[in-house]
């Protein structure tokens, strides 16, 4: 009998299949429950809610604090931006490294946010958000070492974070651009919005870093690291599909 088809190989194939099923089930349940929890917030997490809309439409002139608040709120409820950040800092344990990578992301998204809104550059929100979804897939895949193993090279992570940051910034810009608002005092309001985004990002990161630091004390961290990154990729794909559907339908 051909040794390639021995009983041992057969049973290890079965074991691999069941592992895959178990992993899929874990990821599916994890994502589905996260999805159900986030769904109520999801209605506005990817847009700007009614009261903000009202404020922006009625506001005239410089309004630093309100724009600051709106920026912070948008980042804290921006699960697509936060998921990307989680992916970026997942394996970074030195505060300095976290700072460096987050700064590249901040630089990227600030550039396109300011430039996009100020120059009134219109990009399709669904396409940009689909790309943001792909950025999450990229980071999950990268965390698994996917590029090194499957493609034989490691893309410069700092450059990738900066470049994807640019897309995230356009995403932020489109949300503001969806609304008619007074151009008087635009620059100050826009900068206030950007600063708000950074404050929101900082606050969200505190929680994420605390959670990760706590989890990293346990052996389960490395055991579930790959599951978590698979879930990250899945969330990224789901987000991309959702945005592409929006692009097609609307």
């Amino acid at each position, binding site marked *: 009998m051909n040794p390639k088809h021995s009983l041992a190989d057969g049973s290890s194939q079965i074991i*691999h299949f069941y592992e*895959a099923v178990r*992993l*899929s089930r874990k*990821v*599916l349940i994890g*994502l*589905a429950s996260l*999805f159900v929890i986030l*769904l109520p917030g*999801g*209605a506005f997490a990817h847009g700007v809610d009614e009261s903000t809309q009202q404020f922006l439409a009625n506001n005239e002139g410089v309004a630093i604090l309100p724009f600051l608040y709106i920026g912070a709120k948008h980042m804290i409820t921006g699960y697509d931006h936060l998921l990307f950040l989680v992916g970026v800092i997942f*394996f*970074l*344990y*030195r505060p300095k*490294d976290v700072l*460096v990578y987050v700064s590249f992301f901040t630089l990227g998204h600030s550039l396109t946010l300011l430039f996009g809104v100020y120059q009134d550059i219109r990009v399709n929100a669904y396409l940009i958000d689909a790309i943001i979804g792909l950025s999450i*897939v990229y980071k*999950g*895949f990268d965390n*698994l*070492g*996917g590029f*090194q*193993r*499957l493609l034989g090279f490691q893309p410069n992570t700092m450059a990738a974070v900066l470049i994807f940051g640019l897309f995230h910034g356009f995403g932020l810009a489109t949300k503001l651009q969806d609304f008619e608002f007074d151009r008087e005092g635009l620059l100050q309001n826009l900068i206030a919005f950007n600063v708000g985004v950074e404050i929101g990002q900082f606050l969200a990161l505190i929680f994420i870093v605390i959670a990760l630091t706590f989890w*990293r004390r346990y052996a389960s961290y*490395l055991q579930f*690291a*790959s599951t978590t*990154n*698979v*879930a990250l*990729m*899945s*969330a*990224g*794909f*789901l987000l*991309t*599909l*959702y945005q592409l*559907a*929006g692009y097609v*339908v609307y």
Partner: protein
Amino acid sequence: MSEIEHTIQSTASLIKALAIAVIVAVVLFVTLVLPIEFGIDPTGLGDRLGVVNLISAEPEAPVVARAGEGELAFRSDETVIAVAANSGLEYKFFLDQHGSLNYDWSLDSDAALYFDLHGEPEGDTTGYFESYGAATVGAMKGTITTPFAGSHGWYWRNDTGEDVNVTLVTQGNYEIIGLK
């Protein structure tokens, strides 16, 4: 820059990871996201869960209940009115001044009827009427709040060669006068 020590996955497990990620995403997308956000329900699961169009549905406007200058009780009614081919008729309600009538009418076919939603003041003999809206459509819904007490309602004219039935659903503070 240094990362936490973690093994780079083997090719097999990477392919597996990608496949699982994609499959889970597609499954969740088709079973939950499509029905809930876009009202597309290929698996029928959204319908069973009762979540079709949950997010994107238009917010329901509240039903207006205004008795106005009178004391008519709030009521709900549904009726079917036959409008014969090439003919017209009127169907009316009595409302006090500033009373409200919520309505929703539709047809049993693809036809369109000419309608004129109007009001005639109580006790008026001059034939004066105020039109609140007129068009040729297959369905309409809304609310009117009357400028004066009197009979308010529809003139429907069927210019098609086929008999048509109008299903009229009303809620408000009124009394039914009916066909005129």
